[in-house]
C-alpha cells in the first residue's frame, strides 16, 4: 500500500496552505480534480434548473395566442438568458464535470497537469455565471440573443449586453485555461503503456474538445472585446455609419460558435461510446473510425461557420463553399452513428438506464442531424432560417444529443463517483418521461417552423393557426420538467443508502473502474501499466482459441502486471489545497463590475487578482 504524505510547511508564502479535508473550506480550497468535477456538476445542474425554468416561462407565454404573461422586452431577456445559460453554464460545465472527474482516472493519472489552475477555472466559471445573472438586478439582463448580433447589441440602451460581453469574457478565460490544462493532461500524463490509440474514446473526444476550445475561444474573445469597446468607449467596430461592418461580428461569433457546437456535442459522443460497449458486451465497433471521425469533425468544424449566415448575403460562391463543407461534416458524424449501431449489432445487450439514454442519443441525434443537413442546402435554409424549424433542429442535437448523453453519463458513472447506484427502476421512468416530453416539446416545432412561425417573437395571433402545436410543445416542456424532477429525487435519495459499491459494478472496460468506488484521493495505489485498448476488460477476460470469451482467474495474467517495484513504501505527494485560485478568480468579476460601475471596482478587482496571483506564485510548494 502506498501512503499519502501530509505535506510539511515550508516558509516563504503569504499564508499557510489550507489543510481542511472536510467541510466548506475543503471544497473552496480543493485542487483535487474529483472534487472540482463534482463542483462543476452540481453548479451546472443548478444552472440547468434555472435555464429550464426560463424555458418553461417561454413555453407558458407561447402556449396560447395573444398572451401577455411576459412582456416583449422581458421575453427577449428570458430567451437570451435561456440560450446563454444552457450553452455556457450547463452543457459546457456539465461536460467539464465529466472531463475533470474522468480524464485523469481514464488515463491512469493522479490529477490533472495543473491542479490549482483547474480550481481557478471552476471558480472563474462560477463567478461568470453569478456575474451574468446579477444583471437582472443591476440594470437589465442581456436581451440580444445568445449570438448578440451587432449593431443591435451595441445600441441597446440597457446594460444587458455589457453584462453579456464581460460575463462571457470571464467564462471564456475559465474555459481557455481549462482547455490548456486538460489538453496537457491528456497529452502528457498518460500511464505507462497508455498510447494515444489505447485511450478510451471519451478521452479522445476530450482532447478534441479542448483543442476546439483553445482555438475558437480567442476569436469570440476578440469579438466580445470589440463589442465592449463599442459599448463603453465609443469605438466603431460594428458601426456602419463610420464605415464599420456589423457582419464582422457575425463572422467572429460563428467562427467560435460553430466549433462550439462540437464542443457541446462531442462530450456526449464520448460518453455513449463508453456506455454502448459495456452494455452491449462488445468492443466498440471500429474504434479508430470513431476516433478519426471525431478528429475530422474537430477540423472541419472550423470551416463551416458561415452556414449560420446564408441569409446575410455573402454571395453564391461563399454560400456554396460553406454548404459543401457542411454536407461534408455530416460524413464523419454519420460514420459514428453506424459505428454505434455496429456495436449494438449482435451484442448481449443489457438495457440499463445509461444504455437507454445512449440509445436515445443515437436516435434523437439522427433526427437533429438530418434536419441539420437540410440547412446545408442554401435555398432550403433561406426558407427555414429564423423559424422554429431551426429551434427544433438544434434542440434535437443539443437536448436529444448532449443533454440525454450527459444524463446517461450520470447514471453510468454515479456509482464510481459516489459509491452508490442511482435507482434503475425510477431511472427508466425518468428516461421515458424525458424522451416523450422532449419529442412533444420539440417535434411540433418542425411543423410550426415550416408553417412559418418566426423565432424570438413574443406572441402570435390566433388566426395563424399555430395554437395547437404550440400547446403540445408547452405540454412537452413541462413533461421534461417532470422528468428532471424525477432525476433530482433519484439523485438526492441515492445518498440515503450507505456506500456499498464494488470497484467495477457494470463489468466495464476502462481504467476508472480499476480503482475503488469512490476512488481514493490519489486515484490509484499503483499507477496501472496499460497493455491494450479496453485494458480492464483484458485483465478480466481472455479469448479462447475458438473465439469464446472466458474470465481470467483471479491472480491471472493481467492482475500482477502492475506489481513492479514502485508504489510500495513510496509516499504519494499530492498538491495541497490552496486559497489563491478562488481569490484570483474573484478579481475577474470585480474588475468586470468596475467596467460598468467605475474606477474603484477596477482598482479593487486588479488588486484582488494581483494578490491572488502573487500569493499563488509565492505559495510554498508542497510537492
Amino acid at each position: 500500500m502506498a501512503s499519502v504524505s501530509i505535506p510539511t510547511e515550508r516558509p516563504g508564502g503569504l499564508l499557510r496552505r489550507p489543510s481542511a479535508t472536510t467541510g466548506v473550506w475543503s471544497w473552496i480550497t480543493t485542487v483535487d480534480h474529483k472534487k472540482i468535477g463534482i463542483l462543476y456538476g452540481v453548479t451546472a445542474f443548478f444552472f440547468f434548473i434555472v435555464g429550464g425554468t426560463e424555458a418553461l416561462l417561454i413555453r407558458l407565454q407561447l402556449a396560447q395566442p395573444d398572451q401577455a404573461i411576459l412582456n416583449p422586452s422581458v421575453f427577449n431577456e428570458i430567451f437570451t438568458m435561456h440560450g446563454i445559460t444552457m450553452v455556457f453554464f450547463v452543457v459546457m460545465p456539465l461536460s467539464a464535470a465529466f472531463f475533470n472527474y474522468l480524464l485523469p482516472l481514464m488515463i491512469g493519472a493522479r490529477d490533472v497537469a495543473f491542479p490549482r489552475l483547474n480550481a481557478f477555472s471552476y471558480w472563474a466559471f462560477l463567478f461568470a455565471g453569478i456575474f451574468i445573472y446579477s444583471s437582472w438586478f443591476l440594470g437589465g439582463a442581456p436581451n440580444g440573443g445568445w449570438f448578440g448580433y451587432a449593431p443591435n447589441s451595441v445600441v441597446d440602451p440597457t446594460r444587458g449586453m455589457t453584462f453579456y460581453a464581460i460575463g462571457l469574457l470571464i467564462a471564456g478565460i475559465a474555459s481557455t485555461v481549462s482547455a490548456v490544462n486538460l489538453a496537457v493532461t491528456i497529452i502528457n500524463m498518460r500511464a505507462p503503456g497508455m498510447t494515444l490509440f489505447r485511450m478510451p474514446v471519451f478521452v479522445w473526444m476530450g482532447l478534441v474538445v479542448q483543442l476546439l476550445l483553445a482555438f475558437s475561444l480567442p476569436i469570440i474573445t476578440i469579438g466580445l472585446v470589440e463589442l465592449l469597446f463599442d459599448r463603453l468607449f465609443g469605438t466603431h467596430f460594428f458601426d456602419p455609419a463610420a464605415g464599420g461592418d456589423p457582419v464582422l461580428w457575425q463572422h467572429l461569433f460563428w467562427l467560435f460558435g460553430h466549433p462550439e457546437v462540437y464542443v457541446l456535442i462531442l462530450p456526449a459522443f464520448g460518453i455513449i461510446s463508453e456506455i454502448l460497449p459495456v452494455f452491449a458486451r462488445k468492443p466498440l465497433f471500429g474504434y479508430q473510425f470513431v476516433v478519426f471521425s471525431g478528429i475530422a469533425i474537430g477540423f472541419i468544424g472550423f470551416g463551416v461557420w458561415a452556414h449560420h449566415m446564408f441569409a446575410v448575403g455573402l454571395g453564391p460562391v461563399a454560400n456554396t463553399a460553406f454548404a459543401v463543407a457542411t454536407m461534408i461534416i455530416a460524413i464523419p458524424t454519420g460514420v459514428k452513428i453506424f459505428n454505434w449501431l455496429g456495436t449494438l449489432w449482435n451484442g448481449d445487450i443489457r438495457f440499463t438506464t445509461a444504455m437507454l439514454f445512449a440509445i436515445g442519443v443515437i436516435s434523437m441525434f439522427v433526427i437533429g442531424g438530418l434536419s441539420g443537413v437540410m440547412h446545408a442546402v442554401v435555398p432550403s435554409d433561406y426558407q427555414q432560417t429564423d423559424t422554429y424549424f431551426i429551434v427544433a433542429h438544434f434542440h434535437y442535437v443539443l437536448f436529444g444529443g448532449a443533454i440525454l448523453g450527459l444524463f446517461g453519463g450520470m447514471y453510468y458513472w454515479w456509482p464510481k463517483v459516489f459509491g452508490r447506484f442511482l435507482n434503475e427502476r425510477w431511472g427508466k421512468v425518468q428516461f421515458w418521461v424525458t424522451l416523450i416530453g422532449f419529442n412533444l416539446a420539440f417535434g411540433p416545432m418542425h411543423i410550426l417552423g415550416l408553417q412559418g412561425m418566426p423565432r424570438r417573437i413574443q406572441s402570435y395571433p390566433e388566426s395563424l393557426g399555430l395554437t395547437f402545436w404550440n400547446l403540445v410543445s408547452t405540454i412537452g416542456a413541462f413533461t421534461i420538467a417532470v422528468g428532471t424532477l424525477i432525476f433530482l429525487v433519484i439523485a438526492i435519495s441515492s445518498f440515503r443508502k450507505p456506500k456499498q459499491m464494488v470497484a467495477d459494478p457494470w463489468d466495464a472496460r476502462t481504467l476508472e473502474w480499476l480503482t475503488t468506488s469512490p476512488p481514493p484521493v490519489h486515484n490509484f495505489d499503483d499507477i496501472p501499466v496499460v497493455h491494450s485498448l479496453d485494458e480492464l476488460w483484458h485483465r478480466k477476460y481472455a479469448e479462447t482459441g475458438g473465439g469464446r470469451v472466458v474470465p481470467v482467474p483471479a491472480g491471472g495474467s493481467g492482475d500482477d502486471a502492475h506489481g513492479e517495484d514502485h508504489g510500495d513504501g513510496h509516499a504519494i505527494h499530492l498538491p495541497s489545497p490552496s486559497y489563491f485560485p478562488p481569490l484570483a478568480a474573484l478579481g475577474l468579476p470585480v474588475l468586470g463590475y468596475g467596467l460598468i460601475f467605475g474606477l474603484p471596482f477596477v482598482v479593487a478587482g486588479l488588486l484582488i487578482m494581483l494578490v491572488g496571483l502573487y500569493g499563488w506564485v509565492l505559495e510554498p510548494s508542497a510537492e
Partner: protein
Amino acid sequence: MATAEHQVQAPVTDHAATSTGLPNMKLAIWLFLASDCLLFGALISTYVLYRGASIVGPYPADVFDIPYTSVSSFVLLASSLTMVLALASIQRGDPARMRVWLLATAMLGLTFVGGQVYEFTTFAAEGLTLSTNVFSTSFYVLTGFHGAHVTVGILMLLTVVGLSFGGRITQERSETVEIVGLYWHFVDIVWIVIFTVVYLIPTGTPPGA
C-alpha cells in the same frame, strides 16, 4: 509495444517523467501561445478589413512616423537577444548575470511601451482618438492589445528577478525563465507582423482625400 520505454512514476512532482518527455509547463505555454495567435489573428483581421474604410481622417499616412516606430521596433526586437542571454546565464548557473539580462530585457520592453504611449499621445494631439474613425478604432485596440501583452511580459520578467532573490530560480529550475522567454519572443514576433501589416504596407489613397 512502447511500454518498456516508460518509467513508472508514483509522485506528482515538477520533474515527473511525462508521456511526451516535454515538461507540462512547456507544453502548456506552447498551447497557450497557439491560442494567443488567434487573438491577434482576429484583431489583425479586423484591422485589415477596415483598411481604407474610414470615412473621416486622420488617415494612417497622416499620422504614422515610420522612422520613429522603426526605432522602437528595433528596441523591442533587441530585447529578444537579452532574453536569450538571460536564459543562457541561468542555464550556466549564474543567477546574478541572469538578473542583469532580465532587467535589461524589461528595460527595453519598458522603452517600447513608453514609446507606444508617446506615439498614442502624439496621435491624439493630431486629432486621432479611439473613437475618431474605424482606422483609429482598429489601430488603437490592436496595438494597445499588443502593448498590454508587453506590459504583462515586463511584470513577469520583474517577478522572475524577484523570485531569483528568494532563491527560487536555480539552474535546475531554469525552465521558468525559458517559459517567460517563450512568451517574450512570441510577443516580439507578433510585433513584426503588426509592424509590417499596420505601418509598412501602405493603405492607399483614402476616399475624398
